[in-house]
Each structure stands twice: as C-alpha cells, then as structure tokens.
C-alpha cells in the first residue's frame, strides 16, 4: 500500500484536494501527524501537505478588532509576533515541546489533532476564540472553540473541511496559562488550566486541558466569578479563589493514566485555577483602578512592587524572540 503525498500550492487547491480525498490527513509542521505515522497508529491513504499554502502562515488584525491567525502560524512565531496581544496562548505555546517542535508545530495542527492534551486549546477556550473552517462545497463556517472539541481526538471538522484560521480578540485583560508536567520542560500536560479576565464584560473565561475527554470550559466556575468578583473595588475575598478552584476541579472529569491519576488531576486543576486567578486579579489591579473596557491591545502589565521584566508580554518595546 502506498500513501499519496498531495502538495496543493493554494488554499483553493487544498480545499479541492480535501474534497476529492476526504481521507487525506492534513500536515503542516508534522510534529503530531508524523509521530502517529511512525508509531503506526494510523496509515492514511494520503497526506495533504499544507506547507506551500502561504496564506495559512499569515495573521492579520481584522476590522472587527479581532485577530485572524492562520492555521500555519508556528508556536515560535506566535510567541514572537503575537505574545503581547495573546499572552495566554503565548504562554501555552512556550510549553509545547522543544524549540525545534515550536519552530514547526502550529495551533492549527493542535486543533486538527484535537487531543485533550493539546496545549493550545485551553487558552482558545478562555479567550472565546472561534475556529474558521472551510470546504470547497459549503464555504466558510465559524465554530466557537467550545463547540469544536467533540471527543478524544475528535472535532467538529467535517471530512471535506480544512482549518483556515482561528479568530480571537487581543487580550482585554490579564491572561494566564498553567500546565502540570512531571518534568520541568518538554513534557505533555498531566493537566492544564487557562484563565482570561475580560474586564470590559466583567467576566472571566476558562479552559481546562488534559483532564476530560476534551478540552473544556469550567462553566460553573466562570459563572461564579462573574457573580462574585468585585469589579468595582478590586477587593479579593481570600476564600474566592479557593472556591473558584473547587468549581474548576468540578468541571474536570479526568482519568487515571500513565501520566497521572484522576484524583491528582482534579486536585491540580483546583490549584492551578486558584493560582491563575490570584495572579490575574493582582495584575489587573496593580495597574491602578480599573477604567472600563479595554478594546485594543493592553499596555504594560505592571506587577506590584516589581519592574517589568525584559521580554515580558506586557512590555511591547522589547523585541520578542523565541529561545533557540
């Protein structure tokens, strides 16, 4: 049995190829697809190489204020070029694999694989991103991130569709991503948590990774924050982050596996939720009294009592470059 290697030069050709060969597996960086092929997990009859489709490697600021980030933008570029506007996603991108992997891997690939352990998913959920998918037959479809993940490695993508981009607003408030692994670098998530404060809407978004069959929001925890956070004075009842953590853990439905136990994952999600909320709330109020909606890119994120570190996402003057 041979495997065809399809190399469309344009997006239109890619969509046609996918329509003709719905079994073809799209490959961009190959950091996930090639591992599966090498392990003989699957043997598709065709690979659809999207690397020649230049448009996928582009991102743009759209008229509605959102960012449209092509499915082929690598983690390394996301950190370097968009880290100031998408800090949560940049933090997650920084935890993906090794520098070599981040130079090849993409959020588009993360979405295509739809693994519950994919690091890109929780920040997309917390930010309320939408996934732009397209088919030759039916054109463009926008799928909210929370509706994209259907099961373990299953997404809402139809067999003839390809992922074009994800759309998300630049951060309107502090964002954090936090991931537990059993070593200090280059590790697949035991569990992860993303938090995004949306001060303009007086609410917070969440995303849980690797602690349920799919990445998912902690909806009850978000509702709790919307109801209980004191957006007027910034006062944070010490019991509030703890309760938030409990609710976040309650949204998880983890399993025991080779990377960790279900009980530990639930516990860790609670700790991560509590800590990220504390950090984000500190950041928000350390900048001074809250002044209403943030629409555009945030300015400098100040930390109480400390200078902004070079390369900090809140420090737009500094050039941002991925570690080599």
């Amino acid at each position: 049995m041979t495997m065809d290697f399809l190399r469309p030069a344009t997006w239109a050709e890619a969509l046609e190829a996918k329509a003709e060969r719905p079994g073809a597996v799209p490959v961009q960086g190959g950091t996930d697809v090639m591992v599966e092929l090498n392990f003989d997990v699957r043997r598709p009859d065709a690979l659809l190489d999207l690397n020649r489709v230049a448009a996928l490697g582009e991102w743009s600021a759209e008229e509605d204020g959102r960012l449209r980030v092509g499915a082929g933008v690598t983690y390394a570029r996301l950190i370097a070029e968009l880290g100031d506007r998408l800090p949560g996603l940049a933090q997650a991108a920084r935890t993906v694999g090794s520098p070599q992997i981040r130079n090849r891997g993409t959020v588009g690939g993360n979405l295509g694989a739809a693994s519950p352990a994919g690091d890109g998913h929780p920040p997309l959920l917390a930010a309320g991103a939408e996934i732009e998918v397209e088919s030759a037959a039916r054109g463009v479809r926008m799928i909210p991130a929370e509706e994209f993940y259907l099961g373990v490695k299953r997404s809402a993508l139809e067999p003839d569709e390809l992922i074009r981009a994800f759309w998300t607003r630049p951060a309107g408030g502090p964002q954090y991503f936090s991931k537990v692994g059993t070593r200090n670098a280059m590790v697949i998530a035991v569990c992860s948590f993303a938090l995004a404060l949306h001060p303009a809407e007086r609410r917070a978004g969440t995303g849980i990774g690797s602690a349920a069959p799919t990445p998912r929001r902690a909806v009850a925890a978000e509702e709790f924050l919307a109801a209980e956070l004191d957006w007027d004075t910034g006062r944070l009842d010490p019991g509030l982050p703890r309760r938030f953590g409990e609710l976040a853990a309650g949204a998880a439905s983890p399993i025991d596996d080779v990377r960790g136990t279900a009980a530990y994952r639930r516990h860790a999600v609670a700790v991560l939720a509590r800590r990220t909320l504390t950090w984000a709330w500190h950041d928000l109020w350390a900048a001074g009294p809250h002044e209403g909606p943030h629409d555009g890119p945030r300015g400098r994120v100040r930390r109480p009592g400390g200078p902004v570190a070079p390369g900090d996402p809140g420090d737009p003057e500094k050039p941002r470059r991925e570690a080599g």
Partner: protein
Amino acid sequence: MSGTETRPDRGQSRERGHGPGVGRDLGVGHSAPRPDGTLKVTGEFAYSSDLYLADMVWGATLRGPHPSARIRSVDVGPALAMPGVLAALTCEDVPGELFYGLDRRDQPVLAADRVRYQGEPVAIVAADHPERARRAAAAIVVDYEVTEAVTDPRRAAFDPSCPAVHDGGNVVRHQPVRVGGDFTAPVVVTGEYEVGMQDQAFLGPESGLAVPAEDGGVDLFVATQWLHVDRDQIAPCLGLPPELVRLTLAGVGGAFGAREDLSMQVHACMLALRTGRPVKMVYGRQESFFGHVHRHPARMRYEHGADLDGRLRYVRAEILLDGGAYCSSTPAVVGNAASLGVGPYEVPNVWIDAYGVYTNNPPCGAMRGFGAVQACFAYESQMDRLAEACGLSPVEVRVRNAVSQGSRLATGQVIDSPAPLAGMLRELAAMPLPPEPSRTAGPVAVPPPAGPARAAAATSVPDPAGVRAPGAAATPDLLDLPGGVAQTTHGEGVRRGVGYGVGIKNICFSEGFDDHSTARVRVELLGGEPHVLVRTAAAEVGQGLVTVQEQIARTELGVERVTVAQADTTVGSAGSTSASRQSYVTGGAVRAACRAVRERLAVLRANGETLAETLERAGAVEETRVYRHRPTFPMDPVTGQGDSHAQLALCVHRAVVDVDVELGLVKVVELAAVQDVGRVLNPLALEGQIHGGSAQGLGLALMEEVQVVDGRVLNPSFTDYLIPTILDMPPMRVSVLANPDPHAPYGLRGAGEPPTLSSTPAVAAAVRAATGLRLPRVPIRPHDIAMDGSRYGNWAGDRSL
C-alpha cells in the same frame, strides 16, 4: 558556582611522559580531547544504526504481545508470500543451540512453545526494505493460548502455589548475609522501600549489520558492551565455531548496561546466513524498550538498630529484586545488593536476605549501579530516619558509622585501600549552600524565556542565582521554579529541602569471576615518525575509554601519535564495559603491553639513538598482554562471607531542592558531590561521568520509570518515559579526591557508577525534608507528594527508648 575541584594534595601526582618532551600534555592526568568528540558534536559520527552496505537487506522482529502464553502454532507463509521478503524464520530455523544467556542459558533465540514476557521475539524476517520487513513480520500468524502471568515478585519468591516461570522454581538466587547474632538495640527504625523499573535510556537503539562470509562464517558489526561474550553466545546458537563468528564494534550510542545482553545479534546473523546477504537490523525507539533489559525493580524491608548515640548495632534487611522473565545478570545483581546491602557503614550484626526472582515482567539485568543502587536508596532512607530518631543531623549519623580503611564490609571483607568517608561527608556539608530564594508569590517574569538573557539561562548550567535577566534581580524566574516555564507557581507552595546520600559500589567483576583484559600495542614508523597502535576488544560506549587508552600509551611510551583501533575480536577479550572496570582492567592491560614494548625497545636501542632511529633499524615492535585484577572469591552461600570484591568506591551527594508541596513538582536547585577516584586519568571525562551519573540518579529519584501493569509496559517511548532535561539537572559542585588504591593501575578507582548510587537518596531525602513526607518509593511522583498526607516522623513500628 559550577566546577570540579581536584585535590592533588591527597596523593595525585602528575605522570610524566617517558620520551623527551613528548606526550606530556595529552598523557595520563590531562583533559585530552576525545578522538570522536568533534565527529559526535557535528553529527558526523557513524553509529551502528548508520551502517550501510550496497547489497544489504533489512531484518525485522515479530514479538509476542502477551506476558505469558503458550504458542500453538506459527505460520510464516503470509510473510513469505509478500514481495521483497527473502526469509521468515522461527525457532525451527535456529541452526545450533536454542538458548543463550549471560549467566544461565535460559533465553530462547526465538520463542518455541511459550512466550514469557511482553515483546519476546517469536519470528524474524528479512526483506529488501525496512518497512516491508516490518509488515512481513506483522503478517506472520501466531496462535497463542494466553496463560496466567506471574507479575508479583513477592508471590513468585514465596508462594509455593505460584506457577513457575521456568522449570526449577522462580527464585534465581537467594543470597543471605549473616554476621553476629545480637539483634537488639535501644533505637530501632523500620521501613519498607520500593524502587521502580528504570531504563538505561540510551539514545542509539539496538542495531547492527551481519555480513555472511565466504568461509561459511559471519562478520557482525554491532553496538555492544562486550564483544567476546556476545560471540560466546552467538556462535553456539549459529552452530559455528567461535573463529567463524567475527565481531567488530560499531558506533555505540550509549549503553549503561542495556547492551550487556544480546538483542538482535543472533537474529541478524541467522538471516544473513540464510539469505546470503548482509542483513541490517535497527530497533525503533518503542521496540528498543522491549529489546533490552531494565534495572531490577526492588521491594525492600529494612530494620536498623542503633545505640542512643546513633551508632549502628544491627541491620536486618530483605531485598527482593524482580528479574523478570529471563535470568540475564540477576545472580550478580543479587550478589551486589546483598554484599553492599548495609552501605558503607560499620555494622556489627547483619541479617540480610537478598532474592532475585523470575516473573513474567520485562527481563531485568545490568544497569549502571547494578544492585547497589536499589539497596542504597533503602539504607540511606533508613540512615535519615535513624538520624531523626536519635536527634542527629543526617551528616552526623553517617559520620559516626562511616567505614574507613581497615573497616569490614558485611561480607567480612576488609577495606584495604583509602575510604575516607567521614572526611568526604564533612567536606560536603561544609560546601556553601545556594542562596535561599525570596519567595513572594505574585510577580514573576512571564513567560520566559523570551529574551536573550533567559535564552542563555536555558542552555547553560550556571549558578541559578546568577542568571536572572538584568533589572529583574528581585523577580523570580520561572526557570528557577518547580514546573519551569509551564508556570505552575510564582512561588506559592514552594519549600526548600536539603538531603544527603552516600553510596558504595564494587568496581570490576566480583565473586570469583576471572576478570581480565587483553591489549596489543604496536610501535612503528609511519611517515618517518613513531606511531603507536593500540588494539583491544574493549567497547567504547561513550564513556571515553578510547581517550584513556591513548593517554596511557602516550604516557608509557612517550609517543604523541597514538591510534586506538576499532575494537574487534582479533585480539583477546577485554571483558565488559561495565562495573566501572575498563579504565582499571583494559587500562591495566594497555599499560602492561606498553611497558612490555618499552622494555623491548630498551634492549633494541643503541646508545644515542632516537626512538625513530631504533624503529627504522629494528622494525616495528609489538607486544600483547593480559591484565587481571587481584582475585575475588564467591560469597558463602549460607553466611554471605567472602572477599568478593576487587575494589570499592565511594561517592557522597548533597541535594538542594525546591518543592511545590501543593502540586508535588520538584526543582533540584543544586547537586554537590564528593568522590574519591584514586587517581584522575582525564579530568574532563571524569567530570562528565560524575555529572552524568548524578543525572541518572536524579532521574530515578524523580521521573524515570518503566511503568508495568500486569506484565505490560505502559510507556515505551520518550514521550512518557521521562529523563531529565537541562531544566531538571541543576548545576553541580564537584570535589574529586585522589587517594590512590595501591592495588590498581596508576592507583585509579572506577568512577562511572558511584555517583548514580548516592544522588538518588540525596534527592529523595531533600524532597522529604521539604515536604515532611515519608516518600518510601522512587521515583517520587507528583501525586505521592500532593495527595499523601502521611508524615515522615510517624511510622508505625518505630520505637525509640
């Protein structure tokens, strides 16, 4: 501050080259560069997996999926029917002996009537393309009848109703040690400990190339640790006399014990002889996890009795080592665990029972530290508990019980060379501690590393306190915190702990083994200049023996130009590259051969003649010598007494850790070590051995485990079998002592294994100190810390009067 300090005041002297002004800078005692160093760093070194011949074909292995099953039938027909397939062989096709093994010949070349572990080879295939070979292997139809798997080593050892994995019972070796008879003491601490199954995790998978020869024999190019013992096992299985099986060492990408047993050797030779074509076999990473032995997992029960001042009165221990489905080197591993089971401490009364057992778990055998690692984790954990019970510091309790030259081991063997353990511990304890972090939860540099300053921090190993981005001195860097860039804490929940570990390792083969090496040294004129060719069968596996051989030749002969020939079986056995023995034994053989050459040259040399002139007139001079270390003796089967070891080596570690006690994540902040190596042959290579051994011990403490459930491996990949990265292995302080061993060449003491022993208990002790938890098992998993509320000080069974 990172770096190695050597102490020449303790007996090290600089060896001089014998030639006038030649060979000094690259001789013994100097950091001579590796001859293969540039090639390896630039990616040009040819490893065994890079071997290539134009007409070669590819071999692949079909492995049984069951931990225990009967084989009803094997049908290779579907494989043979596939295009490009040249051969598909089963146990029926083995030309000679059906079994091989290092100690007992109990391992089938290919499974016959049953498989005893998941991944046991059942059939082999040769095809014109590696993928075709793999698919053909998968097409072979095997009819299995799954049988009950023995997976509990305790049941295997002690339950008479347990099925036997092999005829003759499941206990491979039981070695008692009995000293004295007074097992009473005012202070008693007891504990049960467990060590998980560590993998050697070499980077170069099992691979080699077998080339059929016109004389009916076979030439095998292979990455291994011991060419001659490979041949001794291969030739009978092929039904060939040994001289028709010629082995040449191919480029070895790490070993750590995992290449001591055969893997693809007989298979590739069988396929080559059957097809008449060169056959290459290369295991993939996943297959590699099933293709070599691992470190024996251990379950250990210890009871230490001491006087109120902490001086040991007795140790009782039961050490149970799971050898898995085949014997491999289990008996010798048991011997080490038993003979070194109380550690480097003076103990008047000892009662040890060490067992190695068969189960249907993955076979276990040699790995760096070899039985001494497992016991070390248990006895060092006990010493900390004893310190606590007696109100002593961990250092003081060890100092009070430390062996020294003249002390007796549990086997009755007297340590007859320097063993300055108490001084080593005091020196270690006096080393400055890394600065305490200022823990203010909240502001951190997020997300690093995004700028050049932190990029540098991620790729070098400087003092962690010294690598902060400029202007961020007060801001903790995520790289310094548990969890690293995954940002699990900004300082919340982080507590610091300090722990100590001490280890003692036997160097060279023990228990009466005829442990020797052979070297052939030739001096001749090449291009008008003297040149030395050193030939041995000793395997360079990355440790730097090839460099040491060059250094010895330069020092002994005063000739700068030295070549070490690729190791092969055209010269006598060098013994195994294991037990930290090659500098000692092959180094001794090279030195002896060089000195024999030197003596001949001295006779040949006319007055006033240069070496070149002598060689020009008299021709090349060549000598071959065999070197043996002093004899060792078996352990008494009932009492365990006997001078079983040739040499003993000590290393001590201090670990400083930061633990996120809520999440159970650990950042090792610093490892410090003091090791006595007798004599430094190559400072740079030595430092590499100490760093590497320490890292491997750290890995065992915190993350490295082949997870096995019901005889099945859950994580056969580097995705889930985790080894330390640069963010896990901290900078080290290393102090090297050089108190010469009068019995050893140059006074040297084997150095590769001891650091692997002591770093594991040191890291575990530091984590206990940070968390207050018992943590009786390594690797310590995050949930062991985060989800376990038990306190270290409240063990049932402890009593202190």
